[in-house]
């Protein structure tokens, strides 16, 4: 078997949807990477077919962390699903909460007080800082740069998690957003702490970038690796930094303008080549934009209630209907699709997981590269298995 035996289907961007070939061929070597492999970011497996050292086929295998999250959502009340959403992408519980809250608010037509919208923006941007810092650290770890960048990133992440803990009571499983607002009002001390963190984060990014961005080894290792064309990225539903690295200006904060994002002045960084280096660089630039949003949101935070006083959390029964709500999470478009039949539980509860859908083109990015490249390409896609497998 050779690569040309696999006939690609016609799809935009010269996509290569391949048929499965089961026949064994002596010249090719099939390697199972994972599920217990440090580079797969969790329990994820790739069945890689190698011709020499070149990847000719790569099939991801999922489901090691599958607990049928959507069925759990159908069997619990709307409010009781909120802490479950923390467990999807366990690095970014705040944005998961927000996406779920947006979907339920659309379904029931709830309003959100202005102060809560600002607090949500502050928390979402802190989450973005946390996620992108960690991702850059993990990516460096995948490149073989052991320890230092990841520990620097974790040092900063710890400061953000301290803020989350003092606000919500939990470092990672925050369970903070509610339909129609947020659970607790941040104190003046907390806001001062967030301001201090925002002021200091730029210095960390400078330090981080001095270490990495111009680094010759990193450039040689990542530039031109795992190229993705914009047409294929759009067709494959890739969202988030991986899509913007291919040069497509698509950021839901701008496109949908949900919450109070239209009030803030920020830019959407775009890549040029769609390779691994661009995906790294986009995240660094996005963090700088997040800092801009954070300082604007902290400066303009209005007073008032944090919860809609009319919102009813217990015994919440939205009228029959359906809604799809989505926000720009750090990993891409995270959406929730809910169908209500008028009872206390959703009839259908669907999560649109960005990292699962971003994996669709993993094979296309890895074909023709080596195993060592596959590791960093996977690292640059930014997956969390809690969300991939649900």
């Amino acid at each position, binding site marked *: 078997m050779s690569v040309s035996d696999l006939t690609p*289907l*016609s*799809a*935009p961007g010269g*996509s290569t*949807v*391949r*048929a*499965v070939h089961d026949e064994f061929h002596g010249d090719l070597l099939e390697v199972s990477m994972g599920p217990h492999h440090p580079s797969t970011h969790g329990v994820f497996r790739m069945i890689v077919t190698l011709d020499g050292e070149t990847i000719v086929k790569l099939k991801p295998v*999922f*489901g090691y962390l*599958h607990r*049928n999250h*959507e*069925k759990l959502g159908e069997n619990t009340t709307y409010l009781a699903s909120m802490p479950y959403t923390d467990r999807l992408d366990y690095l970014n519980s705040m944005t998961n909460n927000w996406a779920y809250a947006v979907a339920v608010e*659309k*379904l*029931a*037509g709830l309003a959100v007080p202005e102060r809560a919208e600002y607090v949500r923006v502050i928390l979402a941007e802190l989450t973005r800082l946390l996620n992108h810092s960690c991702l850059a650290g993990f990516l460096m770890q995948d490149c073989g740069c052991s320890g230092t960048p990841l520990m620097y990133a974790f040092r900063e992440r710890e400061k953000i998690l301290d803020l989350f803990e003092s606000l919500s009571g939990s470092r990672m499983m925050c369970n903070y957003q509610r339909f129609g607002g947020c659970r607790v009002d941040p104190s003046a001390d907390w806001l001062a702490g967030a301001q201090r963190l925002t002021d200091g984060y730029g210095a960390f990014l400078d330090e981080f970038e001095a270490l990495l961005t111009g680094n010759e080894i990193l450039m040689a290792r990542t530039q031109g690796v795992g190229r993705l064309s914009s047409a*294929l990225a*759009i*067709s*494959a*539903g*890739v*969202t988030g930094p991986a899509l913007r690295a291919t040069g*497509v200006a*698509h950021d839901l904060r701008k*496109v949908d303008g949900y919450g109070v994002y239209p009030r803030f002045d920020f830019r959407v960084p775009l890549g040029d080549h769609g390779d691994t280096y661009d995906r790294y660089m986009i995240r660094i630039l996005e963090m700088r934009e997040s800092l801009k949003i954070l300082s604007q949101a902290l400066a303009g935070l209005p007073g008032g209630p944090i919860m809609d006083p009319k919102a009813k959390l217990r015994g919440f029964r*939205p*009228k*029959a*209907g*359906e*809604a*799809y*709500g*989505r926000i720009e999470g750090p990993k891409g*478009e995270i*959406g929730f*699709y809910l*169908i*209500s039949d008028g009872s206390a539980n959703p*009839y*259908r509860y*669907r999560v*649109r997981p960005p990292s*699962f*859908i971003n*994996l*669709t*083109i993993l094979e296309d990015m890895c074909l023709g590269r080596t195993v060592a490249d596959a590791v960093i390409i996977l690292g640059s896609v930014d997956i969390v298995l809690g969300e991939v*497998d*649900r």
Partner: protein
Amino acid sequence: MDTVEQLRDRLLARFPGAGITVVANPSPAAQHSLLLTAATARDLALFLRDEPGLQFDQCSNVTGVDWPDKEIVDTTKVTLPDPAGGPPKVVEQKSKRVEPGCLEVVYHLYSIALRHGPVILRLRTANRTDSVTLPSLTPVWRSCEFQEREVFDLFGVVFAGHPDLRRILMWDGYQDHPMRRDYVEPDSYEWEPTPHGEVLAKARQHYPAPAAAPEAPKP
């Protein structure tokens, strides 16, 4: 962007007799959807993707919904004359009928180029048992590849024309579809037949068990 009704008319002008129904959504979100027939779904999807004014280039979300068979009890009031000559009696008669269920696949389309959406497409199977095939939209939008596999895995919808239709979250060889409403969890996921049971039965023939011996463990 067009409303759903305008979009339907536009599609019907291009594909007469395509059989498109608007499914209204009564919630405040008011995201109405278009119910397509399996025969024309692929052509309509291609049109939605490539038509200059529409350009739905991103299929964001694909999911399944299970609508089980519904048993509906109709109550009708019948007036019966009293043979004894009294006033006529009003009797309630109940009749049962079964509304057949279906499996539904929902696609959320957005346009990145023109920044509009969502347009929601729905496809329904004829029933939930033997006629569960729908056309795959993976050749139109690549993002359907894993999500249709997931719908196949968890709901049991078979997508004709999908390049690689295998289970994705449950393991190969798993029988049921866990997201169906009538799914019953097995007592044990771990149990599998071993030769031990047969060996034990053979051994029993040679060595009759004493009267008070406990029974062999059932699998």
